[in-house]
């Protein structure tokens, strides 16, 4: 009843190809953006910003990155964590080599390095497919992790072996380091994430996005239709790694403030992969939903018993969280293997006919 596309006629191909051809979706998005840009900054406290919103946005961006590769181009990767790490270390190096440059620009540039490294590790994808490829991306994960530990140049020979985000200002405000206020960091992360999500939506609806999906759906047919498999896959690896790299750099610069190599370990790769799968492969919106679920649920489970005054041992909460997350992953895979994005579509379908389902 409220969600109706009937009667919304498009008079040009241009209108039909718009990102959101349907009015209700445009309204919905506007509301969400208003909440994100106005309501949250106005009402949220520091904990909500630093421990929920900033990580949520960072992970959403990383999930978009992995989704480009796995969801749209069909190449399963378990090396996301390491590619994020490359971005983080590159941004750190850049900002310590050029201390006066705008750190936001440095974060955006750092993705280029991870794109290059992602493309190198994407090379085997020409010959290796499916699960075999997934295992080879583990080579990237473990090798890069080793580099973060064993190449002291990467962390400026800090005795601690960790990268510590220096104090940087941009546009007259402190944007990184301990003095940066959560609200400033939130705005930077929000803007970068929304901008990249929008730009990726553009790429995905055009020729390049289609060529990725062609490779994903039937690589042989795609090749027979003139798609160069290596180029296309490498481009997906590069774009995906770029986005992951930026997300990784944001993770350390605007969220954690310092990172050890273990911050970019295999478990991060899995975390991002969960977000993509649960959100829905091949769906940008799904990346946001998956990130929300996988990041916020454990935080929620962790702090809820305390709030309710129930005294549960901290480790029990942790164990139970693991069990619940694991069980829910299986549950959602069984209920809807195509993820939240598909559930959302089904929901819309129901809304379309509501309140007269027949």
């Amino acid at each position, binding site marked *: 009843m409220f969600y109706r596309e009937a009667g919304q006629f498009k008079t040009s191909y241009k209108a039909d190809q718009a990102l959101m051809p349907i009015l209700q979706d445009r309204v919905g998005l506007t509301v969400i953006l208003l909440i994100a840009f106005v309501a949250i900054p106005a009402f949220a406290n520091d904990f909500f910003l630093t421990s929920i919103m900033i990580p949520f946005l960072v992970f959403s961006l990383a999930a978009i990155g992995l989704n480009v590769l*796995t969801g749209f181009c069909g190449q*399963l990767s378990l090396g996301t964590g390491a590619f994020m790490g490359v971005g983080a270390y590159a941004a750190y190096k850049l900002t310590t080599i050029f201390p006066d440059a705008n750190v936001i620009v440095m974060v955006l540039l750092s993705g280029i390095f991870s794109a290059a490294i992602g493309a190198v590790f994407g090379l*085997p994808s020409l*010959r*290796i497919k*499916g*699960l*075999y490829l*997934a*295992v*080879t991306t*583990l*080579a990237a994960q*473990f*090798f890069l*992790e*080793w580099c973060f*530990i*064993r190449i002291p140049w990467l962390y400026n020979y800090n005795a601690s072996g960790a990268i510590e985000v220096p104090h940087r200002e941009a546009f007259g405000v402190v944007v990184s380091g301990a003095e940066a206020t959560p609200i400033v960091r939130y705005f930077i992360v929000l803007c970068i994430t929304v901008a990249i999500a929008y730009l990726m939506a553009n790429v995905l609806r055009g020729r390049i996005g289609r060529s990725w999906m062609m490779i994903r759906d039937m690589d*042989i*047919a795609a090749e*027979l239709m003139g798609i160069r498999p290596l180029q296309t896959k490498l481009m997906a690896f590069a774009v995906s790694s770029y986005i992951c790299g930026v997300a990784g750099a944001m993770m350390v610069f605007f969220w954690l403030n310092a990172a050890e190599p273990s911050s970019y370990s*295999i478990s991060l790769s*899995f975390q991002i*992969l*969960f977000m993509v*799968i649960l959100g829905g*492969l091949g769906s940008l919106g799904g990346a946001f939903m998956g990130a929300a679920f996988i990041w916020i649920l454990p935080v929620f489970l962790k702090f809820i018993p305390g709030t309710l005054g129930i005294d549960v041992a901290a*480790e*029990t909460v*942790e*164990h*139970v*969280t*693991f*069990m*619940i*997350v*694991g*069980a*829910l*992953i*299986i549950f959602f*895979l*069984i209920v809807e*293997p195509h993820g939240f994005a598909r559930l959302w579509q089904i929901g819309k379908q129901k809304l379309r006919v509501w309140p007269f389902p027949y």
Partner: protein
Amino acid sequence: MLYDIFIDPFVQMYDMPDFFLQVLWEGFVAGILYALIALGFVLIFKASGVFNFAQGIMVVFAGLTLVGLNENGIPAYLALALTIVAMGVLAYGVERVVMRPLVNQPDIILLMATIGLTYFLIGFGEFVFGGEPKQMITEQLGLPTGSTAIEMGERGLIILQHIDIAAAVIAVIMVTALGIFFNKTRIGRALRAVADDHQAALSVGISLNQIWAIVWFAAGLVALATGIMWGARSDVSFALEIVAFKALPVLILGGFTSIPGAIVGGLIIGFGEKIGELYWGGLVGGGIESWLAYIIALIFLLFRPQGLFGERIIERI
């Protein structure tokens, strides 16, 4: 530099033959353990096409159950029997709750489900038995704990741990037993039929669900054996999970469906990474063991995408 890479390591091997043999032995034992984990993967993949990521965790889970039960006052052998029962329950549960509803889903979904299972088992295991690492009850199980030193020339010494020898022996027994099971029993034949063609197997009246439960149980038993051996070498905790990843390059080398492949692959990785680490690792600061196995597998795959024992893939349209 070139001397360090191409000549010095071999000179070292020649100069200290006892040490070289010790390295080979360590590689062999590590390889056996990798092979055992890979074997669990192969069993499940062959029968159901599921890439069971949780195999590594099942190893820890089995070990943890065994030790945890023993800690709660249950005698070792009874604990062992109960653990076997637990693995059976797990197999049945996985088949019922995870596999059956997800039948015919794409590979990646099944893979994700097993990763979900991994999380669940970690949480469950720690919830029930506590999160701290535990000592394997090696002696209570009647496994040897001593070591034998073989002297070689002057100062030369090769130390063999009895538990490692036991691990090798048990691995051989397990592989033989599985071989007999697959080739000589009715269920074994059914298993192979399912591995070849699901549809055809169904049409001759083989129950897929039953087969899957059996394979998961068999994989659980392999996991238990691996867990005991590995636990005896270090200790039983979920930190072992990361070592279990090593079974993945082994699988790549050996192929996802080949039992001999898993064993040969395991040995190649075991020897390769120990020799690489001890004779070449020092050149780049050490620790290359953490990725060497994957790089070996990757390079290997580039030249032989079908694995060691796989057949040449002909693409069709």
